[in-house]
């Protein structure tokens, strides 16, 4: 394809030749015609490169030293990616003198390893600091290119590296050709977690665990072996008071028994639409999976079994109690699968949605936007130029979507004439390409507050969890409840039931601002619009959090409005209370 630079060189050449011929000016004609011949020669050389060089390129990519089509990555960790481009020997290679030219690449090739939004590029390109590390511009002929870059995985779920985009230009930048070479590598991304020692030193003392499911005691946290004597703390059961020792010391002392019953942790994780909105790593679900994985790590490291109920609009999935390293990894696998964004419910089509899809199509399928292969039929309507441009853009996009999803000709035409149908396919295309659920993929946040339905499904899950529970369980509810606080009464009966059966219930409601909604956090840091908007959002979150905390704490449940370490501390404290058999969480920060 000729670039604007090429066209601007050809135009004066043609005009000069025309005028030179008309006026009989030989030198003007010669100069203009020479320029045109030069352009033609450059076009022939460029076309030769496009036809002969491009199909022979061989590309290899290794991620953390592995080039398999599938693999495993961890959220929040750094990944090292190496891309190597070589040329397969062609028939000209047999001619010795041309081998150096034939078996080499360049010049002026931009090699771009396309990455999804879930990967954050950390390095910059060695060739050009303005380019990101996943791009490399080659400006000389060379037999092979290898470049390395580092990236960070933003969130749990899945990462697919689709392939390499090549941008070929001639030395003068008169001609341009773009190709996308498919090289898909799909990785399951396990959620990040805090190591057990990092969050709370709550490692259980030496213990003889009974086999799973067999309980020697009816009451949780009170074993038969005396561990130590300590001062009485309000909330300790009266039967644990060592009266004789208390009388001797003239102050109340409590017998601390060794716990023989493991604390069972049951995680309830909300994966509804609202928790999946936002950029990867900033979603509420990412905060929840981090807390859930960290709690599971801490619990499993001391031998406590962890179960989970993962629920969203599609229904609930239950994971039975898991222990040991294998169990921990099974839970992480389930969390990773759960973090993958499902198909979206249809959204109204917007021009931004179409333009985003077009730019993504230009990045992933540049060769399918070629006018020779993706033709737009001639129609009289629409008449206005801007409408015609929009029609043309939609037709090109419809062609690509039809090719990608293998639609029929009728469906392809329907894509152009039915906005709802196009919107559904554009959303599918964007989601499959690893685009986060933000505008324009989904509409603004307000549309997703389906409080009633979500609270009902959480309530059902909690009731099921209680019905299956044994003694001494800790229910950890990780859900986006801040926006649901006005309708929290739907959930209260299930919480009351759980608490009434002597289980501990902890709520973790991550904040969209990633900050605990404390009084100090509502102060704007500066007068900039961003800070003021953030402060306003924080004030709103604080109001909702206070209301939610009041309602739930009145029943005796613990609440944390944060998706960070504070939430993990809170859950581990609840586990400690359950383990010790105390009824009141005195001394524990909530």
């Amino acid at each position: 394809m000729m670039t604007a630079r090429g066209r601007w060189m050809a135009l004066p050449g043609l005009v000069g030749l025309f005028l030179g011929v008309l006026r009989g000016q030989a030198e003007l004609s010669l100069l203009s015609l020479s320029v045109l011949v030069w352009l033609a020669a450059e076009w022939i050389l460029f076309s030769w490169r496009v036809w002969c060089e491009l199909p022979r390129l061989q590309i290899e990519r290794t991620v953390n030293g592995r080039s398999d089509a599938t693999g495993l990555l961890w959220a929040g960790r750094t990944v090292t990616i190496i891309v190597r481009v070589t040329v397969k020997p062609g028939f000209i290679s047999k001619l010795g003198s041309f081998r150096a030219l034939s078996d080499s690449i360049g010049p002026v090739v931009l090699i771009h390893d396309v990455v999804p939004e879930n990967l954050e590029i950390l390095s910059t390109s060695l060739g050009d600091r303005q380019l990101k590390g996943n791009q490399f511009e080659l400006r000389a002929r060379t037999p092979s290119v290898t470049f390395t870059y580092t990236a960070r995985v933003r969130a749990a779920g899945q990462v697919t590296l689709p392939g390499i985009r090549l941008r070929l230009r001639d030395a003068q930048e008169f001609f341009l050709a773009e190709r996308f070479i498919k090289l898909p590598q799909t990785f399951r991304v396990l959620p990040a977690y805090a190591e057990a020692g990092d969050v709370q030193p709550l490692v259980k003392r030496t213990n003889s665990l009974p086999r799973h499911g067999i309980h020697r005691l009816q009451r949780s946290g009170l074993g038969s072996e005396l561990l130590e004597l300590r001062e009485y703390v309000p909330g300790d059961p009266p039967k644990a008071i060592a009266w004789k020792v208390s009388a001797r010391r003239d102050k109340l002392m409590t017998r601390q028994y060794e716990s023989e019953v493991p604390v069972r942790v049951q995680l309830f994780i909300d994966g509804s639409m609202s928790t999946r909105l936002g950029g990867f790593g900033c979603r509420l679900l990412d905060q929840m999976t981090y807390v859930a994985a960290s709690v599971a790590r801490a619990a499993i490291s001391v031998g406590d079994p962890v179960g989970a109920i993962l629920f969203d609009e599609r229904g609930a999935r239950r994971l039975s109690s898991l222990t040991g390293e294998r169990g921990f990894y099974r839970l992480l696998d389930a969390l990773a699968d759960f973090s993958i964004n499902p198909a979206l419910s249809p959204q109204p089509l917007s021009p931004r949605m179409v333009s985003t899809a077009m730019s993504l199509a230009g990045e992933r399928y540049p060769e399918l936007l070629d006018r020779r292969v993706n033709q737009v039929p001639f129609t009289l309507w629409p008449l206005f130029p801007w409408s015609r441009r929009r029609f043309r853009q939609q037709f090109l996009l419809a062609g690509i979507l039809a090719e990608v999803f293998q639609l029929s000709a009728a469906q392809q035409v329907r894509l152009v004439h039915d906005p709802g149908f196009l919107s559904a396919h554009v959303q599918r295309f964007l989601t499959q390409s690893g685009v986060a659920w933000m505008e324009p993929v989904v509409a603004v946040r307000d549309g997703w507050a389906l409080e009633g339905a979500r609270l009902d499904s959480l309530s059902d899950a909690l009731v099921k969890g209680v019905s299956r529970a044994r003694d001494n369980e800790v229910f950890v509810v990780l859900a986006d409840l801040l926006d649901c606080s006005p309708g929290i009464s739907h959930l209260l009966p299930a919480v009351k039931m759980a608490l009434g059966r002597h289980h501990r219930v902890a709520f973790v409601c991550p904040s969209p601002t990633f900050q605990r909604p404390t009084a100090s956090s509502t102060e704007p840091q500066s007068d900039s619009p961003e800070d003021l908007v953030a402060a306003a959002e924080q004030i709103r979150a604080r109001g909702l959090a206070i209301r939610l905390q009041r309602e739930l704490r009145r029943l005796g449940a613990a609440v944390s409005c944060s998706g960070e370490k504070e939430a993990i501390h809170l859950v581990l404290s609840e586990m400690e209370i359950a383990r010790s058999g105390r009824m009141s969480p005195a001394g524990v920060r909530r």
Partner: protein
Amino acid sequence: MMRGNISNDIGDLRLVTPNADERSTASQTIRSLLQLAIVGLLIGVLLFHNVNLPVSVKGLFVVLLLWLIGRTSATPLLIAFQMILFFREPHRPATADGLGSFVFVVIVLGLLVFLSRDRTLRRVASRRVGDLIRSLFAKRDEDTDAAMSSESTRPATAPAHQPPIWFVRHIASLMTCVLAALLVLTTFPISGGVERGERSLAATKQVLEPVPLVLVATLIAVIAAAELAWRTLTMEQASMYLRSTQVNLLHADIRLIVRSRLKYRRRQKRTASKLPTMAVEHVSSVGGSG
């Protein structure tokens, strides 16, 4: 931030990395300015040959032209030379006069090629004068130099990058282009008579005689090139083309069917949404009458 790194098999890094020669050292700035001065001088000599103007005006014009080229492309230089030739060259019913014209065109084309390829001018034009002066007194970044030079290995086309061979190759290709143009102009001599209205019927016939053959030959060449290029389609492109052709051929019919189906569906939805209210109205009216 970490920087990406590159392995040894890439060839000479000084050739592939623009930053290798983009570093703002004094020597490089001086080299760039010197290079531009030579180019400017050459342009000045060629443009203002036999023109009585003060040197300062000529210099200012050349500097402005170079700045414009740096900001856009080499097109302004071509237009400048074309305008000079347009106004200066006499109307001569003959081909270019010998070696002088040939050399002139080769040099101008060489300048065009050089200014289109070389990024020095673009870099200089994109910088502020203050930065440029500051870079004249900047120290050399020795660490970067050491890092760059330690990685240099065998380039892919080593002989081609050596200056004399590179120069000869480019001169040869330029001369080939000009020779080809000259050949075309010799085959179809221009007379300039169209403007003066002096053409005779016999002369016109003589000019028009090979036109059909030339046009058809050009058409054959274009078709052959296009069809050869067509054979390099990828499978996705081929599939896309077949799909697109089918849709193109049947578009009017399919559009009609799709639109009528959509209308039918919309009508069905509307009736479905009206039905319950109608039923309620019916029940209430029955209750009311009872």
